[in-house]
Structures are given as C-alpha cells and as structure tokens.
C-alpha cells in the first residue's frame, strides 16, 4: 500500500500515488467525491497496480501538502469500511429480516 506524495513546483497541485492492490476503484472514487467540492481531481494510471491522484484547489489558492496526508487517511478508512461491509453484510440482512418479521 505504499504511497508517494509530491507537490507540483508551482505549488498549485499535489499528487499521491496509491496502490490499486490495496485501494479498490470504489474506494478511490468515493473518497475523491468527498473532496470534489473544493478540488479538481484527476485519477490516472501510473505504474502497474498504481494510480496517481492529482488535486488542485478550485479557488486557485496554494495547495496544502497536509491535504494529501488527510486524503490517504481517508482512503485507508474507506477501504476499511468496504472490507467491513463485506464482512458483516449477511448479518445486516438478518437483522433487518428479524426486525421486520411478525412478532410471535
């Protein structure tokens, strides 16, 4: 899950490289959506099993490197959520089924 941060020389964009072996497509898209109000975001293929995510502030302000760290933390959290969803998906179905079945 190695990631690589880089800042563009003009200070307006920041990039990170994320492993697709660890972060799923859904995870990358959902976290990007969270940032889409404030940032222009592009996701491009990098090396094998890697993508480069580039962020640029919509208001033209300088890019703060901390956002990249925050972004990667969000990716980790989201991947955990997706993993957990898979794990307890069946249990959730049962809870709803039990909850709405007639009381005997």
């Amino acid at each position, binding site marked *: 899950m190695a990631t690589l941060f880089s800042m563009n020389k003009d200070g307006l964009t920041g990039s990170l490289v994320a492993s697709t072996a660890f972060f799923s497509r859904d995870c990358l898209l959902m976290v990007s959506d969270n940032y889409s109000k404030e940032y222009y975001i592009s996701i491009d293929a990098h090396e094998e099993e890697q993508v480069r995510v580039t962020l640029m502030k919509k208001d033209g302000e300088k890019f703060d490197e901390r956002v990249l760290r925050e972004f990667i933390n969000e990716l980790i959290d989201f991947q955990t*959520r997706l993993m*957990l969803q898979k794990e*307890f998906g069946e249990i959730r179905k049962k809870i709803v089924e039990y909850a709405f079945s007639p009381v005997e």
Partner: protein
Amino acid sequence: MNQYTIFPFQFARLSQNDILMVNECGDFLFLPEDIFQLFVNHTLPETSEYFCKLKSHIFCADENIEIALQKTAARYRTRKSFLREFTSLHMMVITLRCNQHCEYCQVSCADRDAHKYDMSKETAIKVIDMIFQSPTQRPKIEFQGGEPTLNWDVVTASVLYAEKIALQQNKNVSFVICTNLTGITTSQLEFCKDHNIAISTSLDGERSIHDSCRKDKSGRGTYDAFMEKLETARKIVGEDMVGALMTTTAFSLNKLKDVVDEYVRLGMDGIFIRSLNPYGFAAEQSATLGYSMESFVEKYLEVLKYIIGLNARVFFPEQFATLLFSRILSPFATGFVDLQSPSGAGISGAIYDFDGSVFPADEARMLARMGDRHFCLGNAATSSYHDIFAGRKLKEMTSGACVETTFPCAFCVYQAFCGTDPVRNYLESGSEVRNMSHSPFCIKHKGILRGLFDILRKADDMTKDIIWSWITYNPSLVRRI
C-alpha cells in the same frame, strides 16, 4: 486472529486518537485508534476491557451470534417504530390568505380578500374523513396557512367534526393551530381553550430581529401586536399550550444569543434554533436573508453551548439538540418527520392543500404552487385513501428514501440519527435520490451531529445532567445554583 464476529457499524475519526463507532441500533462508543485497528483486524484479545465493552454494546459477538442478532433486531425495530404510527401528523392548509407579509414567507401568501384560496367546509370534511382512515390511534391535526384564523368557520367545523369521528372510532385526536397571533380574537382563543387546541406561533427574537422579517401588509414590524396577543393567548389558553418557533435569517445569525435571551425573558419553555428554509419567497430573497449552511452550523453550535451554560440557572432546552440527543442516548424512535429513514414524507406526515390536494410534505406543496405537481399524491375529495397512501407514487418515493441505501449515507457514522428528504433532493437536484455529499442537508446534519458527539465526549457531570433533563423533560435532574 480471534474468532469473534463483527456486527454492522459505521465509524469516523472525531480527533487524532478518538474513533466514534455507531452500530445498527444507534449504540455508540469512542475507541482509541490502536484498539480500533486491533478490533477490525480481529486481533483484539477477548479478555481485554475494550472487548467486553464492544461485546456488551453489540459491536461484536463471540459464541452466541443468534442471541446478539435477536437483541440487535429488537432494538432496530424499536428505532423504526415510527413506521407503525402511519400517518400521525396531518397538516391542513385552511387558507393561503394572510394578514402579514413576512420576508421569508414560503406560502406565497395571498391577499386578505382572496377567498378563492380558502379551504371549503366540504373539502375539510373530506380531508378529515381521509385522516381518520390512517391506522394511527393518535392523529394530530395541524391547521396551517397562510393565517388559518382568517377562515375560522372551517377551523371550527373541522375540529367539531374530527372530535365526533374520534369518539366514534375511539381514537385520540389532538389539534395544533399555527398562527401569527396578530389578528386572533378572544372568542377564537376561547374556542382553542375549550377544544384543547395548542397554539404554535412565530417569534424570531427581540423587537429589531423580529421586525426585520415579520411585517404586516404595509411593511411595518409586528412585534408590538404580537406581544399584546401573546399575553392574551397565554392568559386564555394557558402558558403551556402556547409555543413559539423562530427562523434564523442573516439578520439574526450573529445574534442568536439575543434571540435566546428574549425567549428566556418571556418564559418560553425552550427554543428550536431553526435554519431558514431556502424555498418559496425566501429563495428569491436569499441574497439578503440567506447564509451558508456551514455558517449556520458554526453559529448553532456556538449558541447551543451558551444554552447549555444557561441551564445551570434555568431549565431551558434547545429542542433540536434534545431530539438528536434522544436519538443518540435512548433506544426510542423520535417522531420528527424531517429526519427519518425511510423518509417521513407521507408516511409520518401529510399536508392537504386548500383545494384538497394531498402532498407528502410542505415543500412538495410549494413546488406545486410553482407549477410542478410531481409530488401530488391525489385529492382528498376525489381519490381514495388507498390510492393516496398505498399508491405507486408514495411507495416509489419511500423505497428510495433510506439513508441505509443512499450514498454516502450508507457509510456515514451518523446514519442511525439522520434521515432523507426526497422532496428537498428533488428541489435541489431534480431527482428524489441524489448523492448527499456537499448538499446543504448533509452539511447541516453532519456538522451538528459531529458537534453533539463532541459535546458528549467532553461532557462533565453537570452537562450530562442537563442533557438528560432535556431528553426526559425533567428540570429536577439538574441541581441549580
């Protein structure tokens, strides 16, 4: 790897080291980051204190999964019990006419003499017949406007007829009249007293704040007229039967403490700090009246802390926080139509326009006034109860309106306490189901819920007592100075 089974939950980071976890039945826990990682990786020792906590709050189960499942399902059913009260709140638009002309009015208030916008007695009777077909044992009928007192004969006829039917069906009906009070007469107030009709009125704050938006037809402030009638109403109907609501505008956003002080000065039994509804007239005037949802959340949390501080002296709940704290700290459902999953539109509340048209929510009616009848469920005079409340339209709308299946709500830690609003979604995006990220609805509820959990995380004993006194409406839980 330990053999425990993880039960459904959502999580978020509240601070560097504090993870908030909320499970399917709305139980919550704060966990340090390292413990959280051990837990989700199935490496938390089953002998640890944290494991016991997680197990007792049903975030996991070790041997007997079936019992944990039954317990969770029972709590889940309790939280969704509002579904059994189908449909409890019925709002009747008695007239669109009004004696005032408020800056943020959402009903496109008609002139005093535009009687074509009055509900007729015949329509009112049909509406009440329909209301009493709802399975609920406790229908609540709310008379709205415009200003409903301007079509008083229909209010009285509706009350008398509803009381008669309630007696026949052995149901417990209650009434509320939403009135600006400024034109109400003594005999109208006496009728309210005789028939146990609660009064819901509007007070935006002290004189300058109130008068900045709540004006009469000639543009003059209504504060003095309101105060005079408030006193009379309280004398005749009783203080506990007269409640007021405020609307936050750009004029009051930075003066919310003054608004609270005015409510306390008048001996009101609490306050509901409401954000501006951005539709109807208010949308046209949003440049002068509006503000961003982010700034509302900031100011709301600021004034909430002020109100909590005040409660060391006087019992004075903030009602929106009370509602959310009840959801967070108690297992019970709270009947707040605007914040339910599935959406409360139509299934918890319905609104009947002056001409008998039925809508699932007030915004849907406003939309129809603007020419889009997308949400019209039918007409009380011509459609059957089944067509309206078990029809395709309401079913389709409700089945898509669940936080559990909406993005990003399905992954949101506040899901168990939040809700959806398909009408608002449609107004904002043209679709009943939308991506909620960055929507004003989400910004507001995420921001406020996060703030409330922060208060809970840092709460001392006094703050906890205050919160519980609000939830239980029991002032004596707090030892006051």
